[in-house]
């Protein structure tokens, strides 16, 4: 997968606590429903890529978006989770779907 050069520094650093936005997306987006509103932390900065939400409609996909690897606790995601307390889930999430965890989620 070929990325784009970073146009500006990433908004979030490794270790930052982030919340997945809860907005309703119209059209193609790559942030799964089960993560929306949940808090995880950044464990990787994957690069900068053209925006799939625009590429999906034959647009150039600019501005390119920083893509993060975000780690969640499985126990936080699923109320009935029966697995080990240390179980984790990682997902690649674009920057425009992330807010600082300290900010309240949208109603």
């Amino acid at each position, binding site marked *: 997968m070929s990325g784009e050069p970073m146009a500006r520094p990433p908004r979030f650093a490794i270790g930052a606590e982030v919340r997945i936005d809860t907005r*309703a*997306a*119209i*059209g*193609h987006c790559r942030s*799964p*429903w*089960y993560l929306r509103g949940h808090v995880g932390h950044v464990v990787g900065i994957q690069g900068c890529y053209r925006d*799939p*939400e625009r*590429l*999906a*409609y*034959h647009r150039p*996909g600019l501005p390119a978006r920083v893509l993060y690897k975000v780690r969640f606790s499985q126990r936080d*995601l*699923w109320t009935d989770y029966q697995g080990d307390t240390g179980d984790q889930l990682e997902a690649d999430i674009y920057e425009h779907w992330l807010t600082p965890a300290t900010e309240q989620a949208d109603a």
Partner: protein
Amino acid sequence: MVDPVPRTELRAQFGGRAVHDVGGLDLGPIDFGEHDLALWEKRVDAMLILLIGPKKGAFKIDAMRRVIEDYGEQQYDATTYYEKWVRAIRNLLLEQGIVDDAELAAALADARAAFAAEGRAMAAGDVPDDRAGRRA
């Protein structure tokens, strides 16, 4: 060419979830069995790789995802993996003006005639035209 408009097909009774976005829902057991791919499925796979490759660049894989996500719930659930692919490829070739309706109809008629001449059965009738705004 058709200018695609963002829209979202929601899955009934599951809040604002889009049709495909079913992670975490209890939708019954998952079949983990392996199975051989049919020749047509391998051809569809090859066709997609060629279409999205740098030489042809007919569309981005994200557009493919979008078209599949735009299937209504009924059609999304009723079609197999490569059925989704081949329908999406068909829709995108029409959407991008790479193939037009008349060319597609002619190619299908030729295929039907060739099959008939060999005494082979052709799968079901027309695949529903599920391009944006055209679904009945």
